[in-house]
């Protein structure tokens, strides 16, 4: 059980976050500059918050009211950074041995080999970190962090500097490793795919605040704010007015569009915003009674084609499979029921 409530400052940046989980894998997700790394540094003890409380299970790492602030070397948190984690003057085995908890005294060699085997690098103990690939280096860094028998693993974008196919392998192996060692994980990333794969609890941070938390599936399906919608890929964010209320949502009128959006319905006549994924926007032949759009840009993606439309004054993006229209084409626009969700503007949350 990890519980975090922090208020901290660095220069003019203010961080005020609170989250908790009883699951093993927590991901801090958000744009760069959101305060993710600063939160992690508060957990590791390298940044002292103004107030708050950090606890892992029964162990309190920081509590301003009880005047507890364990120094970093007493927190037993394993740290893996994007780079500069492995000590360049030690061998691979030396790096892992350097982190070994005192209980392994006398059994260092065996433990180092066990940890190397766990990260798939048996027999690498004598190598120098400089001779390893980026992915191998991060594997050794994980073994090093695990060597200290940490009560919490803190990973700050550890796979960002690694080639994409290797990155995917590393993510899967990390999942297996966390289960094998039964160690809780706090993982920082700005990549939603990575967050979705690794998180049991997803905490979305922006501007020094938690703007949404939940399971990744829940956050992806029900983004609460325009920014979260943007981050989880529901990148069409359209502002309009409430034309009517409908069950668990509202009908929002925006330009030529009248879209039934799910979510907490605001009152009739109020301004409202909804989001919809490009993959959910359907393009049809231009027929009467349907809002019409003009294709302004066509961008090929790896498995779809991104079609950007002008719909009245609105801009809308559709991800099209198969035959895509050409620039200048007139198309009908359909946003099927159940695909649009009401979101609030981020400035509105305090």
């Amino acid at each position, binding site marked *: 059980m990890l519980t975090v409530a922090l208020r901290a400052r660095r220069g003019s940046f203010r961080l005020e976050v609170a989250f908790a989980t009883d699951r093993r894998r927590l991901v801090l997700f958000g744009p760069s500059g959101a305060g993710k790394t600063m939160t992690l540094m508060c957990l*590791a*003890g*390298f940044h002292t918050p103004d107030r708050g409380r950090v606890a892992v299970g029964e162990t309190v790492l920081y509590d301003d009211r009880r005047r507890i602030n364990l*120094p*970093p*070397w*007493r*927190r*037993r*948190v*394993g*740290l893996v*950074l994007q780079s*500069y*984690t492995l*000590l*360049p*003057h030690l061998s691979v085995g030396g790096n892992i041995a*350097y*982190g070994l*908890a005192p209980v392994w005294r006398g059994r260092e060699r065996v433990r180092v080999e066990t940890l190397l085997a766990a990260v798939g690098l048996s027999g690498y103990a004598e190598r*120098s970190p400089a001779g390893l690939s980026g992915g191998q280096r991060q594997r050794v860094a994980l073994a*090093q*962090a695990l*060597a*200290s028998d*940490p009560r919490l693993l*803190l990973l700050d974008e550890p796979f960002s500097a690694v080639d994409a196919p290797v990155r995917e392998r590393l993510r899967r192996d990390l999942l297996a490793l966390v289960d094998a060692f039964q160690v809780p994980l706090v993982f920082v990333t700005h990549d939603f795919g990575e967050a979705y794969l690794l998180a049991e609890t997803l905490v979305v941070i922006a501007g020094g605040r938690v703007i949404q938390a939940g399971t990744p599936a829940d956050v992806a399906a029900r983004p609460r704010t325009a920014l979260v919608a943007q981050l989880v890929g529901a990148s069409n964010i359209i502002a309009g007015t409430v034309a009517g209320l409908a069950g668990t949502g509202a009908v929002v009128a925006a330009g030529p569009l009248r879209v039934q959006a799910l979510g907490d319905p605001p009152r009739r006549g109020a301004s409202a915003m909804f989001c919809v994924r490009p993959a959910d926007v359907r393009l049809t032949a231009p027929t009467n009674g349907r809002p019409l759009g003009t294709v302004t840009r066509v961008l090929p993606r790896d498995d779809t084609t991104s079609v950007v439309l002008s719909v009245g004054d609105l801009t809308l993006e559709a991800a099209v499979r198969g035959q895509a229209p050409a620039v200048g084409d007139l198309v009908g626009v359909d946003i099927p029921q159940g695909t649009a969700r009401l979101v609030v503007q981020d400035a509105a949350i305090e």
Partner: protein
Amino acid sequence: MSERGWLVGASGARHRPGVPWPLSLAGVLLVAYLVVPFVFGLASLDTTAITGAIRGAATAGAAEVSAVTATVATLVVVVLGVPLAYVLARAEFVGKPIVTALVYLPLVIPPLVGGVLLLDTFGPYTPLGAWLGARGVAITDAPAGIVLAQVFVAAPYLVVASRVAFEAVEPSFEQVSYALGRPPLVTFLRVSLPLAWPGILAGVPLAWLRALGEFGATIMVAYHPTTLPVYLFVQFGAQGLHEALPVALVLVVLGAVAVAVVQAAGVRGRSQGVS
């Protein structure tokens, strides 16, 4: 590796980044300015003068006194200066700019003045000097006084070099060490110091050479036992300029040998992966 791609020319041959000729010219001018006086000065010497000077310096034991005191002074500077450099590189505290300025102070004031200040502190008629004297510790006209004078003038060179070396150590290495449960002193000894060591090592010959050549503060504090620079001054006073010059040659050779030894040690350290 793609990041090296720009070094690969159309023919596939690697191009070294060229040194623009104005830079080479400036470098040549400075080297010439540094070397030419030696050439003219040494050309005026004959071999009997040189052998006589070497014999004389040896008689006076000046070379030995200089080498030993400079080495002891350098050790003192390393033992006290490396920790100070680490503090200046990593700690934030009130008055840090003042401490930084104080480290540079011996470079600013003439060594002669430094010697006077040391006399005012450790001289036989000062409280500290009397206290030490009562316990049989002689400072003035003793090797300890020479070392004090040398430490005073040599410390800045090592502290500045070491501070730069520590500042170049990526702080995340220290963070990772802390996170692995290693407290600050262990982290300093096993992470920061080994990583900064090549840079610190660059400051060691600077400090040693400055200690070896130290004259102004030394002659105020300890005329005896005679160091090479003091012996040079004595020769100059007694027999004139051209009798003194060969002593300088002994000093130069001693310094060159020391630098060569330290560089060889540094190269060996690097190839063993210390850097």
